[in-house]
C-alpha cells in the first residue's frame, strides 16, 4: 500500500537530501511544502500517513504546526527532522505529538532504522 508522505521544510536542498535518503523499497507518494502555513493548508485538503516536519522555518515554525494539527485532531505520524537539537525542542515536539526526532543531516541508515522502529516500513 502506498504511504502518503508530506515533507515540510523551507530549504529545497534539505528536502532533496531527505528524498535522497528515503528507503528504496518504501512505496511512498511524496508531497513537499516550503513552510508551516502551506503545511497546514495541504493538511486541510488531505490526510497524510506520515509527515516529516522541520522546526526552524520563516513563518510558522514546526512546533506551532504541531500545535495547530493537535487542535484540528489531525491524525498523522509526525517525525521531526531538524537542525534544532535542543533538548527542550525535542521535549516540546514529543509533548505535541511528534513520534520521533532526528537531527539533520539525516542519513539513510538512520532514517531506515527510525522508520522500521516505528513500523512505518
Amino acid at each position, binding site marked *: 500500500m502506498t504511504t502518503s508522505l508530506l515533507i515540510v521544510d523551507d*530549504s529545497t536542498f534539505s528536502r532533496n537530501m531527505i528524498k535522497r535518503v528515503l528507503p528504496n523499497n518504501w512505496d511512498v507518494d511524496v508531497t513537499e511544502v516550503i513552510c508551516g502555513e502551506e503545511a497546514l493548508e495541504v493538511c486541510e485538503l488531505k490526510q497524510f500517513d506520515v509527515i516529516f516536519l522541520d522546526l*526552524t522555518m520563516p513563518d510558522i515554525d514546526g512546533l506551532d504546526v504541531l500545535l495547530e494539527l493537535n487542535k484540528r485532531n489531525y491524525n498523522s505520524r509526525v517525525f521531526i527532522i531538524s*537542525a534544532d537539537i535542543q533538548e*527542550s525542542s525535542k521535549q516540546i515536539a514529543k509533548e505535541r505529538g511528534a513520534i520521533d526526532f532526528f537531527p539533520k543531516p539525516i542519513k539513510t541508515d538512520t532514517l531506515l532504522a527510525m522508520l522500521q522502529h516505528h513500523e512505518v516500513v
Partner: protein
Amino acid sequence: MTTQQEFTDYQIDALKELANIGMGRAGAKLSEVFEHRVTLNVPNVAMVDEDKLNSLALKFETGSPIVNIIQQSFIGEIEGRSAFIIGGHNFADLVNILGYEEDDAIDEGRQKEMLMDVSNAVNSACLSGLAEQLELDIELTNPSIVAFNTPNSTLKDFFFKQKHQETHQTLLFEIKFFIKDINLYCDNIISLKISSLENLRNALERLL
C-alpha cells in the same frame, strides 16, 4: 566575479541549510550553557559588500545599551572571520547565570575569558556544520575581544575596522540567537574571504 551570481540560488539555499545545521548545534550549546531555551531563526547567507557588516552590527537589537563583540578567525581550506555579538543583559547577571563565583563577576580578566569561552563554543559549533558537511578542514584561531561592555552607540568604531585586503565583497553568514527567558541576544556574523569561495563552491558541487 563580484556578485551573488557566483552562487546559484540553489547553492545559496544549500549554504543556508548547512549554516542552519551549525546554528542548531550552537543553539544547543548556548541552551546548555545558559540553561534556557534558545530561539533560532533561519540564517541569512548572501554575498555582500563588507560595509554591510558594519551596518549589521549597528542594527544589533539588544534591549540594552551595552554590548560585547568577540572576533575570531578561521583558517584552512576556507578562511574568514566571525564577529560574535552578545548583549541585552547586565554582564554581572550573565556571569551569575554562567555559574561563576561572585568574585569573578567583578574581575575584568575573568569576564573577558568567559566571553571568549562562549564565543569559541558558538563558533566551533556554527562552523562545524559547514565544514563537516562540505568535508573541508578549518581551524579556529584564538578569539579576541574587540568591544567589551561597550555602548551600543559606539559600535561602529570597533566593528571590522580592517577589511579583507583583496576585495570589498564577502560571503556573509548571519546567525541570530535569542534567549527570551534572560533577555539575551547573540548574533554571529561570519564572513568568508573571496579567495576561499572557489574551494567552497567546489566542495558544494561535490555535495550537491
